């Protein structure tokens, strides 16, 4: 078992444990914190997969911005206490079971897929900002421009919805 695999296992374990923490913790703030942990673990995977730029963006956007936003909203609403009314238990179990069933189904389906392996030893520079930037502004310029429309509408929307 190489070092990569050990790192993979550790990171994965952290990610899954944190993810479970998100859905199981009663206190929403704990959930957020678990979420952040999970994201950090995922960011670790990004490094391992030579996606350096994404690692940075991920940390900044998700952990830095989005999760903070969530936390902020939670704080603003004063929801830090365990005030969430419990779902009826059977629905909770049903949710867990059906999610698990979906997991099983997908795993069963994808178990047999024959795919090229990942060479963890070989490092590529594809994930560097210069490479990505070049592609982004050449062949991906159309979606890039279009995402501005998306942002505009999200902005307008947030304003329309948000203002009193």
């Amino acid at each position: 078992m190489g070092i990569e695999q050990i790192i993979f296992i550790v990171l994965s374990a952290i990610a899954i444990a944190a993810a479970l923490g998100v859905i199981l913790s009663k206190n929403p703030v704990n959930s957020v914190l678990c979420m952040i942990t999970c994201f950090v673990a995922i960011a670790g995977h990004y490094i391992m997969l030579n996606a350096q730029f994404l690692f940075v963006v991920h940390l900044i956007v998700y952990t830095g911005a989005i999760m903070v936003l969530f936390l902020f909203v939670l704080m603003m609403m004063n929801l830090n206490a365990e005030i969430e009314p419990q779902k009826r238990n059977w629905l909770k179990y049903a949710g867990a079971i059906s999610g698990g069933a979906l997991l099983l189904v997908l795993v069963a389906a994808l178990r047999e897929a024959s795919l090229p392996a990942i060479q963890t030893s070989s490092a590529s520079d594809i994930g560097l900002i210069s490479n990505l930037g070049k592609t982004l502004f050449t062949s991906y310029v159309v979606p890039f421009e279009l995402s501005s429309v998306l942002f505009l509408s999200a902005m307008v929307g947030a304003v329309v919805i948000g203002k009193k």
Partner: protein
Amino acid sequence: MIHLVWLVPFLPLLGFLINGLGRRYLSKSLTGVIGSGSVLAAFVISLLIFFEVRQPGFTPQVVSLFDFISVGSLHIPFAFQVDQLSALFLLIITGVGSLIHIYSTSYMHEESSEGFARYFAYLNLFVFSMLILVLGANYVMMFIGWEGVGLCSYLLIGFWFRNTSYNKAANKAFIMNRIGDLGFLLGIFLMISQFGSVTFSEVFTKVPSLGEGSGILFAIALLLFIGAMGKSAQIPLYTWLPDAMAGPTPVSALIHAATMVTAGIYMVARSNVIYTLAPCIQTIIVVIGLGTALLAASIALKQNDIKKVLAYSTVSQLGYMFLALGTGAYTAAVFHVMTHAFFKALLFLGSGSVIHAMGGEQDIRKMGGLKKWMPVTNITFLIGCLAIAGIPGFSGFFSKDEILASAWGFNKIVYILALIGALMTAFYMFRLYYITFTGTFRGTHEQEHHLHESPAAITFPLIILAILSVIGGYVGLPEVFGAPHLLHEYLSPIFAPSAPYLPAHELEHSMEWILMGLSSGLVIITIFFARSKFIRYQDSGVPNTGIAKVLENKWYVDELYDAVIVKPLMVLSRFFEDTIERSGIDALVNGVGRGVKWGSRQVRLVQNGQVGFYIFAMVIGMIILFVISLFL
């Protein structure tokens, strides 16, 4: 002259149209002239045709007017066939018809002018239909007339349409006729599928090829005979005829005695080849004819309505005619049709005269001694009774004797039964005569005051018919008399095709004399018995019991039919409507609609408003679809 044969039915049709359409504008006398005149003119033409047909060497001629139905290989022309049989019937129909028309001008005089015109229109329409029936050159033409006469009978029975019971009688007549017609129609279809034609000449030439005793032939013969049973009031379809007496009396005379009811005989005589080749059916005809003759005669014994007696007598006589047909004595049957037309029309008209005089009273128990006031009616009625009873010298004697002779040839038991029927005939006719015309008057004073002999328009036809009733028989003198049997010779071309297949029943002359003497003697004895019983008849007022009650109630046949056919039909219909239609099919159809609505009410509950549940359902759906697509 023969090519003008279309005029014969056309003239009454014209009369019908004029009287029918102009019934509001024509005066009664004009109506009467048009009505009677058209039939009289037709009679004259018929007479001319008859003389032409009588010429030796005459061959049947078909006058085709136009194509009625023409489909593929099936051609049904609108054509008239003139031959000995149709010419004879033409004479009977137009002759008796004219007399009855003339009679009616007086008899119906109390009707409003519109009703009067309507009456004559119907009557003319009837004559038209009847002429089509006998003139038609194929079975479809015959069927047209067949249904046409049924319609006219319906219209005339219900002539006084305000009376609901008359209407019911009319309905009954029509529906019973239709039952027969159904058989006739099926017979025609069978003919079409078998021979590809319904034209007499073609059918009759193709029939022998099927061979004697062929099943198809049996079927055709039987089906046609069912038609005849309906129209000619044979068991089991006879009950309409007595009820049909609801119509005006001349109508009873014309339609329900002289002409329409003999259509069945005409048809069987016309199709003689078919019947001769289907001996099994002939036996059935004999049984039914004889049964009808006896049953009706027995009922007539106890009837008190003057017209009902005559009606049952008609049914009974028709039974005799079928008996003759069944034994293969076609000529005898036609002969009896002719003589019966004379004396039965006479009797009916006579009874009409009586009813007229009695102011509408029909119950013979309320009459009596009428000969004092109505000499002409009395005499003519008596002649009619003698004729129908079969007193030697009168027409009925000759025709009935011929029938009895052929019955003897066929089967001795049949003969005996037929003879018993003849005796019953004599008995009830003279019972009727004596109760009505002799003794003392039993009606009200008012009626007595009103009694009078009928006017000339009524008595004239009576006299003519009385004469015919006497002499009408001499066209068919029995062989033993040595004189030629004119009618037999005249009609022989018609029955020639079946002659080879008929078993010969040559009677010994001595045997014939014996039979004739036996029947005459017995009849005369019976008449005297009736005379002793009824000449001084007084209504006892005691209700009949036992067999007499059964007879008075006509063997309860109407009640039987009601219980066996009408009631079950109603129950069935009710079952169809209530159970199958409403709670079955319609409920099912509506149930589908209700089911959709019910389903809708249930399905919409899934949409419970909780987004958590929605997502859950989506996930479940995904899992199911995944499993289906990946692992199935």
